[in-house]
């Protein structure tokens, strides 16, 4: 995405169109090459799609006044080049309306695109975008809003996302953690104690089903996204990094001067944590997402995923380039920690920027961490738990007098429900609930903090009885229902919230509506285990390793017959719970679309992006020389022109430190640059986009 932004110099239309008040007109190419090219490409083409217009942001998008986005119009599956294209916003030519030129492109023989990067609408109201291309017409409406300024505003927001934590997970977590006496729970979860409840619908822009990327993106941008996308609307080309972007809450918080924290038990590049900063159509652009984290510079980043921070030459790296993201963070002033002991030793009162990566990939789950399951942990025996990470993050962030936004994710609730490992999922939900406890405790002392707990989507798990072998039955026939179910017998003698034994004599039965054939013996798996593996011809075979005794000659009594050919249980579509407490929690009520959660947070904080002192993100600066040296480049000063000359990755970049003008491979670019204490400092934005970028 950054690449394209850097080369937008297409201004041919500006002069011609800037005076027009009606419509932007594009003249058709004189030849009919468009159709010929299409024919040549697919001589035996299937019935072709009808020509259509796509506009991003999409119809009914709700936008915060001043929120940045990329505006894009696509004409797709054209049968002929339109002779005239007009793009207007409330009757004004789009480029006049936005004050920037439309950049025209053609990503295929049958398409035309018009784009303006980095625009915003500053005045609240309804806006109609209308596109006319010969006979094709399409219009969409936007609702541009200002944040509610009434009432007590929250200075801080802590958003805690239980990945995959549908209603049954909350109930199971309460049942396992707190227990029940004669039908009444012996206690409530921390999340249960939040005063406000809502339900959230989770569908994506392109499907009623959903994944963790687009759902997280809805929370962090207020916009719908397609499956696997973060901080973007889709476009018609295959480059995942150039899609029209929408500003994320991480970027917005930085603009209004608040600190940002991200805490997760997954890779920090995984969908949910990434959504705070990322713009990509493809959540597995994890190496790029690591750079996006660097660019936005959240003050706290804690989780897994170090493999994407290592340059390719280091064994264990998952990068395809030599960028040393660790070194880049260190150079920007981050304290970097690798394990729980180091995290504990961090003095939060003296630490302003903290990066902690505790695993090359996703962190181990709580059950394996807490039982010191050597077979699973391998050498990663000193990983912190989620509530300690959350506490440290709060302690670092709370020093910002302007406030902070912290996202905490209980990642592996989802990651353990996919392979039908409900015990591990519930342990991770309990762990997350303890992080909610840490957040609530801070919020109560602080009085200015909104705490939100929600999920991004559900799984098809249901609670359908108890499992008891006491009368000699075992396997599926030992599932007890109605009065025979009685109550599960989990105990918690040490009062740590986790059951003393995951396999008490009477267990809660958690089954899946969408599953393949798999073995369920109602004993926790020795290790996280694939429920089925692919045999020849793609046929799935249940994995006996899920059983306590894989060699049990009568193991088919544990075989759950599934109805799906998938080794990974799919997400389910139903609404998910949301609980909120603290100032602004009243914005969260009733049935909400997931994009409403973003606006709830914006309203709770009263974020104003138009007028006042806000509007420009505070830049993070790093010494240019150190950066270039670290990336194995060279830096010199041209005595004649006084320009700083950078040679890096085969590129030569000449920077004028007083004007911020840079010339790279013949192209003139803008660099945020300043000189302080004899050192040339460049913003982290410019370092990634201009110095490092293509």
């Amino acid at each position, binding site marked *: 995405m950054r690449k394209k932004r850097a080369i937008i110099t297409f201004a041919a239309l500006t002069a011609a169109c800037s005076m027009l008040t009606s419509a932007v007109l594009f003249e058709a190419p004189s030849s009919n090459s468009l159709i010929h090219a299409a024919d040549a490409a697919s001589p035996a083409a299937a019935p072709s799609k009808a020509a259509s217009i796509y506009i991003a942001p999409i119809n009914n998008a709700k936008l915060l006044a001043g929120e940045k986005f990329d505006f894009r119009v696509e004409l797709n599956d054209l049968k002929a080049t339109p002779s005239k294209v007009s793009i207007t916003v409330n009757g004004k030519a789009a480029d006049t309306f936005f004050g920037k030129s439309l950049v025209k492109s053609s990503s295929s023989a049958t398409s035309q695109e018009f784009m303006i990067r980095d625009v915003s609408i500053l005045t609240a109201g309804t806006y109609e975008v209308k596109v006319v291309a010969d006979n094709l017409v399409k219009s969409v409406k936007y609702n541009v809003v200002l944040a509610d300024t009434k009432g007590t505003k929250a200075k801080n927001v802590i958003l805690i996302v239980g990945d995959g934590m549908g209603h049954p997970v909350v109930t199971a977590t309460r049942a396992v953690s707190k227990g029940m006496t004669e039908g009444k729970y012996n206690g409530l979860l921390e999340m249960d104690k939040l005063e406000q409840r809502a339900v959230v619908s989770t569908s994506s822009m392109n499907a009623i089903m959903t994944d963790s990327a687009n759902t997280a993106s809805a929370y962090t941008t207020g916009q719908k996204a397609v499956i696997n996308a973060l901080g973007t609307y889709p476009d018609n080309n295959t480059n995942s990094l150039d899609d029209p972007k929408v500003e994320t809450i991480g970027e917005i918080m930085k603009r209004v001067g608040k600190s940002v924290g991200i805490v997760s038990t997954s890779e920090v590049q995984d969908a949910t944590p990434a959504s705070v900063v990322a713009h990509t159509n493809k959540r597995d652009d994890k190496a790029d997402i690591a750079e996006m984290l660097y660019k936005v510079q959240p003050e706290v980043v804690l989780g897994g995923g170090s493999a994407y921070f290592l340059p390719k030459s280091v064994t264990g790296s998952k990068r395809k380039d030599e960028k040393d993201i660790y070194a880049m963070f260190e150079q920007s002033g981050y304290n970097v920690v690798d394990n729980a002991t180091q995290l504990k030793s961090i003095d939060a009162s003296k630490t302003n920027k903290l990066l902690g990566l505790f695993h*090359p990939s996703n962190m181990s789950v709580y059950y394996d961490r807490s039982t010191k399951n050597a077979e699973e942990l391998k050498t990663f025996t000193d990983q912190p738990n989620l509530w300690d990470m959350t506490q440290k993050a709060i302690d670092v962030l709370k020093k910002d007098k302007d406030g902070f936004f912290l996202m905490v994710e209980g990642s592996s609730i989802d990651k353990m429900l996919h392979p039908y490992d409900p015990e591990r999922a519930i342990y991770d939900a309990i762990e997350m609930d303890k992080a909610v406890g840490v957040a609530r405790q801070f919020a109560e002392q602080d009085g200015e903090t909104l705490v939100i707990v929600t999920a991004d989507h559900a799984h098809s798990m249901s609670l359908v009885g108890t499992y008891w072998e006491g009368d000699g039955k075992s396997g599926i026939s030992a599932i007890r229902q109605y009065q025979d179910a009685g109550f599960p017998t989990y105990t918690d003698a040490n009062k740590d919230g986790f059951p003393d034994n995951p396999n008490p004599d009477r267990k809660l039965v958690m089954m899946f509506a969408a599953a393949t054939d798999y073995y369920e013996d109602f004993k926790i798996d020795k290790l996280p*285990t694939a429920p089925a593996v*692919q045999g020849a011809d793609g046929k799935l075979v249940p*994995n006996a*390793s899920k059983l306590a005794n894989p060699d049990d000659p009568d193991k088919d009594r544990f075989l759950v017959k599934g109805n799906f050919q998938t080794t*990974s249980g799919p997400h389910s579509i139903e609404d998910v719970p949301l609980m909120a407490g603290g100032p602004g929690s009243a914005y969260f009520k009733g049935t909400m679309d997931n994009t409403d959660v973003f606006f709830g947070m914006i309203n709770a904080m009263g974020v104003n992006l138009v007028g006042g002192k806000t509007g420009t993100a505070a830049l993070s600066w790093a010494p240019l020389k150190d950066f270039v040296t670290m990336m194995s480049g060279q830096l010199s000063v041209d005595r004649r022109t006084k320009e700083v000359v950078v040679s890096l990755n085969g590129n030569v970049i000449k920077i004028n430190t007083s004007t911020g003008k840079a010339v790279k491979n013949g192209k003139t670019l803008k660099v945020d640059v300043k000189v302080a204490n004899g050192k040339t400092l460049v913003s982290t934005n410019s370092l990634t986009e201009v110095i490092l970028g293509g």
Partner: protein
Amino acid sequence: MQHKMRPALAIAILTGWLVTVTGCANQSASEPIDSLSHSNYEDRSGLVAEDSGDIKVTNDPMTDAVEEPAAEPTGNKEAQAQAEKQAKQPVEVKSEKVLLKQRDSKLLSNPQDTANASEILSDKAEDGVISLEKSEKNDAADNNILTFEELYSEVTVRGMKFSDKLLDLNDKEVVIEGYMAPPLGATVSFFVLTKIPLAICPFCSTNADWPADIVVINMRNGKSIEPTEHPLKITGKLSVGSATDDETGFVSQIRITAESVEVMK
């Protein structure tokens, strides 16, 4: 789904079809390597009927093949001698039918019983034909037996180091056991060997990574093998160090050019 990266790691940066191949990486779904010697899958009751179609095994090619040495001369004389010795022994061939029967009658509760019936794909076999031979522990290659645990000596968040044993065995013939990661095609001439079986998971495949400890197996002379969920014993020449496959862009750290691929049932 948990994608627990094995601490150490052969990078698996995926492009092209390998992205699709990516298992849902229940990489954390590990199982002690010991258990590979007694596969959990051989007595999958109720599924054996389907299984019988998995591998092209018939009685005829088996008996044809048993007169031949198990492996091409490899320079490892001991291994060759052992293979020849094996070939000369009276062979107790157990066909799929026998296996089926045994499974049905639950005679195979001792996994060792099934070790007698295994398949060896060797260069000596006719093209496309997998020969079945009596398999005993190939102790000739004992010194060169690698396990997944032995690939890396140091594994931290800041990177990993190849073990001395792995480096010592570079360019030498080694034996390693593991599972074939689910491939895309019906037959494959190269595949990824993992410590534990991986499952394909369409929903999280966009988010799935390879485990840290994987070995890329290239079949010698472009020979192909059919996908199998059963454990495999690979014998072949080891190659260590980062390499990028020209065709697929797949980056691997540890590779074996397989002389033989033995399906252990």
